[in-house]
């Protein structure tokens, strides 16, 4: 391998702080190019932070990092080198999209890097085959096991040929076989792309042994650098693990001693803690767990090993009662596992594979909450929390939030929570994945103590062979079945292999037969001359690759794995396969190499934009319910409001306190009750009743006709009729007032005409009212065109409002940080599918208005459609803007309600014209898009208008788009802060 003299990464005096904690302390380091560089160190010493800074995912606070010959803080350099860097973040599939399938996830990344279809297909096929994910290509990423997610994450990172590959604990939670495959894949890539630099952080020391150069870190500083053998020599130790421990400062390794687990003393008559019989779990046609039977005695440490996705976690979940088994029984302490059995749960401590504690609570609050929920004695809680915190070395981070902690420390917290109530049984699903070696030993010390001293039963799954060796018994699981259960040493012996790892792999290979999941082949495919730079375009490499069967990688993949103690290499593989298919040769590899000439990355690329559109649309398609709610919800609401909202105030309840009781007074009341506005209620008898009935809201109007009403009227004495109006709802009261006055006038006129002969009847003139646009003054024609703008704001905004914040909350926003996609491409790409849905909604609603409600559309429909496109773009843009502003999905939902609900119902002219509004409401009304679209909607629906009359309302809608999108782009961050 050629290694350039100039380092690939130059770190100069870099410091990084999170609040008060110093994550990186004035760190300087040159990382040689063209090498596999390992970053090792305990949890939380700044490895991940350093990697995030190198890839530009995180904002640099202090110092300078040069990557691939330029300052990474320089935006244009970052943009230029972005496609040459691949970054796989820590965490099980953090940057994946759970609803998308395996294939679609990788495909999405391929599109982001602008790969043409054929090249992409070929690369994906290759990657999936070599990671063993091929059989699962259509499974949603969310349904993969932790290890499989990890593999998928790697595929996504490797879809383009990077010059610098940054992997943050890539093999955490990956089974030994897959780990071997994984490193073969990396080796293979390095062959194909000579000079590729790889920077990896890992907790596996046997992996670190394979690296060319190591950087040992502690406390944000560099402890030592050098090749693995140099480090071993320097510390005069046999293994890297020992070397690493000896490199640590005195106080950190003081407590560390070689771990010895005392043998189990009592066996035979012990109580059975876990008993599973033919435990089976099926998800559809997929059998995740197939007739698993287990008997674990009290006080036993029982290890559970198996390939990723073989059903270990599912089995554990059935034992905890989280999943009811499809068939078979599970018993804990002789009692059938039942979700309702709280007493048993009190005795069990469970730690799930993915972090499942409260990210919003501090470490201390999490510990205390669990202590309280398990009802530890009040007085003992503080003591116990301190005790556990010390045991798991959490004391320094007690007030930190879990999200701010590295994976290893989060795992410790989960463990601490699992044991806080001193359970009799611990079910631990890969508890030590991602935890550094020293902490792992400490943890095992604790397990040993619990098991031996307190007779706690421990059921643990792990991918660390040295941990498996510490168990009293282990089970090997594959494809839902238990292959073998025995004492570790016995299993090794039976298999005839030298180590447990080899035995494990042998078992798996035997079980899967000629399964294509396991790549066969032997090493020795070192082509040192592949690094001739060629200027071939990616297209030509595609053609070259097309000629080659995609199984080339399978046939010459290298499978080297080392025993936990380091040293001897175990070669696995099937030589027969090798003879059959030729290894990939120089010609192919050099053809597919485009080293030194990274493809030009344009500032703006429609391809990248559409890749986000596609992704968003796929997610929508995976969640058909969401689309259905959006469409049917629209219809439902349209019906509800079309028929439900009545603008004419009528059917008002009134009653009369008639203290005259003559035919004349009766006539007055009848006149009122005869109109469609008022409905007469039983008469009122006295003032007290009047007060009560008004207070209850039963009556909107109460009339009091005074005693001697008819007589006084006859005599020409002034008479007063009292009208009490319920003012609680001013709109209604005003209407009542208006109606009652008009009716009073009418009654007067009528009576005057009847009785007065000499006098000229009233009425100086007549007012002829023409109700325009809606001559029958019906609610429907007024309301329906107004409901369309309202719903077309609320629903599209709500649809798009979660799209960005969701990525923030679930972690996949990282893809924006580390891929060449620009903020504009990201936002607009996401917006397009929602605009499409919005338009479907629009057509649906306008059809409903015309054909179902019978509200004719009189104006220019084409114009209305054009306005609707602009308006829906506004609405979805507002949703996206909210999404970029908020940090949690709950806040985004609530903000969307606040921003769209009231303004579109109250401030946009639906009920009251904007001209009548006051103050802030007026201002919001004038600038809110719904106002302008409402004018257009009413104009074309009821007033038969078109472009000429309504263009002044179209302009604001068009102008708002660049403003909203521009604001979103401004507020969106392309780096983690």
């Amino acid at each position: 391998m050629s290694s350039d003299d100039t380092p690939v990464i130059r770190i100069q005096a870099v410091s990084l702080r999170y609040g008060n904690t110093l994550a990186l302390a004035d760190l300087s380091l040159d990382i040689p190019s063209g090498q596999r560089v390992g970053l090792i160190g305990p949890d939380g010493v700044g490895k991940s932070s350093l990697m995030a800074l190198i890839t530009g995912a995180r904002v640099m606070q202090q110092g300078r990092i040069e990557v691939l010959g330029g300052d990474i803080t320089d935006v244009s350099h970052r943009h230029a080198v972005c496609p040459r860097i691949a970054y796989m973040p820590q965490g099980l599939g953090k940057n994946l999209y759970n609803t998308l399938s395996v294939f679609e996830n990788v495909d999405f990344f391929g599109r982001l890097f602008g790969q043409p279809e054929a090249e992409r297909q070929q690369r994906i096929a290759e990657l999936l085959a070599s990671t063993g994910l091929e059989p699962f290509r259509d499974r949603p990423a969310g349904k993969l096991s932790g290890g499989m997610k990890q593999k998928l994450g790697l595929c996504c990172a490797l879809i383009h040929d990077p010059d610098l590959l940054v992997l943050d604990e890539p093999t955490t939670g990956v089974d030994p076989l897959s780990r071997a495959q994984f490193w073969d894949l990396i080796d293979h890539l390095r062959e194909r792309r000579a000079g590729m630099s790889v920077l990896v952080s890992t907790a596996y020391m046997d992996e670190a042994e394979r690296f060319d150069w190591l950087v040992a870190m502690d406390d944000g500083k560099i402890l030592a650098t050098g090749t693995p053998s140099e480090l071993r020599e320097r510390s005069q130790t046999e293994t890297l693990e020992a070397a690493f421990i000896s490199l640590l400062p005195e106080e950190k390794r003081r407590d560390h001693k070689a771990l010895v687990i005392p043998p189990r003393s009592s066996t035979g008559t012990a109580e059975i803690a876990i008993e599973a019989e033919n435990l089976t779990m099926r998800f559809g046609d997929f059998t995740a767990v197939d007739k698993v039977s287990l008997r674990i005695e009290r006080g036993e440490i029982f290890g559970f090993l198996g390939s990723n996705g073989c059903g270990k976690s599912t089995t554990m979940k059935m034992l905890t009662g989280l999943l009811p088994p499809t068939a078979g029984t599970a018993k804990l302490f002789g009692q059938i596992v039942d979700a309702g059995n709280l007493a048993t749960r009190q005795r069990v401590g469970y730690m799930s594979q993915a972090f499942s504690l409260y990210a919003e609570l501090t470490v201390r609050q999490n510990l205390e909450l669990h202590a309280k929920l398990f009802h530890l004695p009040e007085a003992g809680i503080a003591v116990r929390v301190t005790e556990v915190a010390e045991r798991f070395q959490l004391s320094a981070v007690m007030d930190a939030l879990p999200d701010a902690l590295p994976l290893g420390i989060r795992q410790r917290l989960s463990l601490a929570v699992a044991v806080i109530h001193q359970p009799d049984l611990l079910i631990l699903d890969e508890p030590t994945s991602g935890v550094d070696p020293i902490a792992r030993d400490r943890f095992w010390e604790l397990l040993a103590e619990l098991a031996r001293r307190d007779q706690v039963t421990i059921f643990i799954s792990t991918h660390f062979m040295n941990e498996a060796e510490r168990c009293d018994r282990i089970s090997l699981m594959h494809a839902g079945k238990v292959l073998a259960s025995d004492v570790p040493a016995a299993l090794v012996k039976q298999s005839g292999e030298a180590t447990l790892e080899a035995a494990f792999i042998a078992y798996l290979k035997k079980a899967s037969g000629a399964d294509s999941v396991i790549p066969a082949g032997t090493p020795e495919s070192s082509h040192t001359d592949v690094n001739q730079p060629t200027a071939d375009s990616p297209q030509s490499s595609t053609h070259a690759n097309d000629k080659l069967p995609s199984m080339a990688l399978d046939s010459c993949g290298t499978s080297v794995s080392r025993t936990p103690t380091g040293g001897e290499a175990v070669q696995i593989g099937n030589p027969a396969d090798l003879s059959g298919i030729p290894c990939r040769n120089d010609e192919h590899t050099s053809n597919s190499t485009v080293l030194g000439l990274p493809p030009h990355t344009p500032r703006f690329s429609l391809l990248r934009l559409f890749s986000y559109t596609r992704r968003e649309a796929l997610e929508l398609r995976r969640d058909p319910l969401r689309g259905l709610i959006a469409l049917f919800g629209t219809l439902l609401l349209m019906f509800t409001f079309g028929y439900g909202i009545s603008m004419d105030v009528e059917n008002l309840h009134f009653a009369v306190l008639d203290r005259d009781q003559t035919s004349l007074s009766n006539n007055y009341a009848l006149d009122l009750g005869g109109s469609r506005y008022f409905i007469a209620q039983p008469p009122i008898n006295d003032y007290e009743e009047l007060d009560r009935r008004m207070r209850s809201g039963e009556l909107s109007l109460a009339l009091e006709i005074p005693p001697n009403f008819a007589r006084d009227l006859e005599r020409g004495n002034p008479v007063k009729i009292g009208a009490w109006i319920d003012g609680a709802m001013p709109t209604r009261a005003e209407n009542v007032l208006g109606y009652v006055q008009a009716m009073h006038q009418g009654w007067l006129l009528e009576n005057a005409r009847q009785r007065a002969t000499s006098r000229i009847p009233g009425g100086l003139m007549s007012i002829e009212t023409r109700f325009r646009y809606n001559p029958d003054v019906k609610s429907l024609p007024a309301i329906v065109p107004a409901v369309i703008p309202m719903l077309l704001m609320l629903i599209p905004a709500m649809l798009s409002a979660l799209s960005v914040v969701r990525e923030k909350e679930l972690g996949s926003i990282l893809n924006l940080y580390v891929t060449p996609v620009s903020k504009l491409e990201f936002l607009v790409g996401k917006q397009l599918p929602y605009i499409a849905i919005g338009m479907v909604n629009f057509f649906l609603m306008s059809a409903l208005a015309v054909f179902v409600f019978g509200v004719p559309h009189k104006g220019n429909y084409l114009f209305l459609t054009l306005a609707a496109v602009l308006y829906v773009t506004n609405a979805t843009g507002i949703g996206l803007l909210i999404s970029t502003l908020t940090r949690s999905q709950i806040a985004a939902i609530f903000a969307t309600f606040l921003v769209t609900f009231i303004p579109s119902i109250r401030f946009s002219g639906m009920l009251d014209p904007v001209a009548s509004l006051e103050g802030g409401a007026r201002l919001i009304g004038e600038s809110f898009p719904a106002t302008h679209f409402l004018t257009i909607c009413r104009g074309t629906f009821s007033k038969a208008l078109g472009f000429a009359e309504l263009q002044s309302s179209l302009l604001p809608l068009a102008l708002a788009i660049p403003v909203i999108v521009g604001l979103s782009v401004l507020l969106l961050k392309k780096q983690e802060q």
Partner: protein
Amino acid sequence: MRHTLLNIFYLGVKELRSLRRDTMMLVLIVFAFSGQVYLTATGVPESLHKAPIAIVDEDRSPLSERIVNAFFLPHFLAPDVIEPYASDAGMDAGRYTFVLDIPPNFQRNVLAGRKPTIQLNVDATRMSQAFIGNSYIQTIVNGEASAFVQGHRAVASLPVELETRVLFNPNLSSVWFGSVMEVLNSITMLSIVLTGAALIREREHGTIEHLLVMPLTPFEIMLAKVWSMALVVVIVAMASMVFIVQGLLDVPIQGSMSLFIAGMLLHLFATTSMGIFLGTVARSMPQMGLLMLIILLPLQMLSGGLTPRESMPALAQNLMLAAPTTHFVALAQAILYRGAGLGVVWPQFLALLGIGSVFFALALARFRSTISSMA
């Protein structure tokens, strides 16, 4: 029993702590109960407020001038006196809700008792102003005409006066009404969003799985969410009532605040249960957002807080009897504006209790049956 209560308490405290971390959410909550209430209360006017009117004066007589000058704030904007041809354009563009056309020789014809006709054009798509404005304009024009004519000849009238007294809100101030109704809206919205979304959040982050392996029952988990979120809402709602509604907006509250709080608690019991129910139905946060939108919109718009209930179609009225907001709005109006006591509002209390219990039972049943699939 003691354990159950303690669990409910601890889990509720956890909910409160979680909420406290979300600064943005807290800001939004405060805004919903302060800024939004203020904006809506002061911004949305009485139904006939600053109604835009134009007058085509083809008479140009003292009487027509008198009529033009009779329209003034707050009911009407000062009228634009326009030419006849401008009338249609102005109405088309939505500039005027009303255009009054005074014909030539109007004054002469009135005085001569020839009963001339004035034409009033009303934009009937603006239903809220159309009716009420029409009757106001009729009264105003008639009034001006008879006052003008009074000096010239006798006008017939009967000596019956209608003395109107508006109870509970004598000036028909829309601030009184709008502010309180907005607080009610925010109460409903917040309580449903908080509980429903919090449940989905637990599910999406996998934390529900953790609760399920602990000695906790779905009942405890659910009740914890109900009490904690209800507490948050009660506190902000009361702060809003005291500082914004009574303080800043100077709205007098007639009835007993504690009775109102009791009613609010019953309402929250129902809405938080609804939120949890929705949380068990939706499978992801985006679904939840839409679902809440579709539920909340009718709850808010048809509750009687926006348009009078009695004017709605019978079907809508009856369906909305199942919605807690209908009863909450009714009892809030009765207590806060009309000073009603328990003797008056007990049917609403009972209805809320019933609706709440049904939703709680539904939510609990669904929570129990779906909780295992949530992990």
